[in-house]
């Protein structure tokens, strides 16, 4: 399959649109969907074609075949880089799809597209997600952190996950609650999490702090035992959307200069 498509070859926007539109070569469509998202395509045909491709997932009631499933995942990833709200109906339907990975990717896409209509299905779905399905739980919790406004319901729903036995679920839950409430007590857990013996956990925690943009954790990021490339991604979040300025006791301009100088030192 791969040989016939020339995957990895340089293609242009027209070619990507053509490949996505045809329906006989699945791997060509898969690559084209990825390409359009990666290149942040703004062609007027891009979103309608991606939306239609995602709609194919609902043409039958039976579980999707491998090609259809793989294409849908790449379309969801592409929509996370573009204006996903154009495909709101399809993304919302994916949030409750029978396939776990589609639900997971749809949660990320809904968050990236700021789809507030996704909050209710995410809440319903999160209550039913198995505690063994770490990746799906993380994606749903993180999406709610991006989208939800503070309310007793949402805080009540997320709080139990801060006691999860899985460190990355604890981190995701604290991240989401910090984003929703701006209450610095939710940042306390990061101190212990960032010392976790697993490097993968430490990386995930740094990325969570970066996603919040939590400025009081600047020193924690700098001194953590994580490679500089991850620290730099986390610090980008602090520079681009800083929060907790009051708790850190600095102005927005001071915060920006502090973060940029920390980044310069880590290059």
């Amino acid at each position, binding site marked *: 399959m791969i040989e016939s498509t020339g995957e990895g070859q340089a293609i242009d926007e027209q070619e990507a649109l053509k490949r996505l539109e045809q329906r006989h070569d699945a791997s060509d469509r898969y690559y084209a969907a990825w390409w359009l998202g990666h290149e942040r395509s703004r062609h007027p045909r891009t979103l309608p074609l991606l939306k239609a491709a995602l709609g194919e997932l609902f043409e039958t009631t039976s579980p999707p075949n491998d090609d259809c499933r793989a294409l849908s995942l790449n379309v969801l990833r592409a929509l996370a880089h573009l204006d996903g709200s154009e495909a709101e109906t399809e993304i919302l339907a994916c949030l409750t799809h029978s396939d776990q990975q589609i639900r997971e990717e749809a949660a990320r896409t809904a968050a990236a597209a700021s789809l507030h209509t996704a909050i209710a299905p995410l809440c319903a779905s999160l209550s039913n997600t198995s505690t063994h399905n770490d990746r799906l739980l993380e994606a749903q919790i993180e999406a709610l952190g991006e989208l939800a406004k503070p309310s007793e319901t949402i805080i009540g729903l997320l709080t139990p996950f801060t006691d999860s036995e899985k460190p990355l679920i604890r981190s995701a839950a604290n991240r989401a609650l910090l984003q929703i409430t701006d209450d610095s007590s939710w940042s306390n857990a990061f101190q212990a999490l960032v010392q976790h013996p697993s*490097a993968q956990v430490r990386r995930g925690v740094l990325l969570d702090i970066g996603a919040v943009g939590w400025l009081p954790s600047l020193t924690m990021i700098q001194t953590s*035992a994580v490679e*500089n490339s991850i620290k730099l991604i986390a610090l*980008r979040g602090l*520079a681009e959307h800083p929060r907790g300025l009051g708790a850190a006791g600095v102005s927005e301009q001071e915060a920006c200069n502090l973060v940029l100088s920390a*980044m310069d030192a880590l*290059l």
Partner: protein
Amino acid sequence: MSAEQPLTEALRAVDQATTSDQLMKATAALVRCCDLKAIPKLLEVIGYNNPALAGLAVSGLIALGRKAAPEILENLDPQNYGARAWAVKALAEIGDSCALETLINAAENDIGPSVRRAATKGLGRLGIADHPALTTDEHQRCLRTLSKACTDSEWIVRYAACVGLENQIQAGDQGFSEGTSRIKRLASSNEPVKVVRLRAALALERLQIQ
């Protein structure tokens, strides 16, 4: 007791370490030896995919200074770009002009973004402060590569290029108009990543360019 003994012992301790804590202690002892003969082992250690350990080993390589540069250059690991990024970082910090070719090549062609980032940072420091001066030709090539890096596909490489150009222009190349126009472009809406625009705006402010 011969002068070799602490080195031999530290090398053996690194080889015999079975936990990451032991490995950290043994590597710290090796770094304290401050001996050029420790270089191969320090380079081996930075390939273990343990950032705290690699950071320690790199600090040891940097402490050895310019005399360490040729051996680091000869032993860049083509298979492991994590290790290569750390080694290039050491070269960049040491700032020896013998690393110029390697840094230019790494900044322009390495497939690892973290390697291009570290090399770009190094180019921004070559010939500055206590680093040995570059020839005019070397300096021009260094600036050309920094300018090119402003259009890298990875935001962090463009960020590093901005920092590098600011350093080089600050150090005496006010006449380098291509560099200033590149920074201006990174500060404009043509640059899609906000943190790169923020850093470029800071560079323009420091260079007092409108």
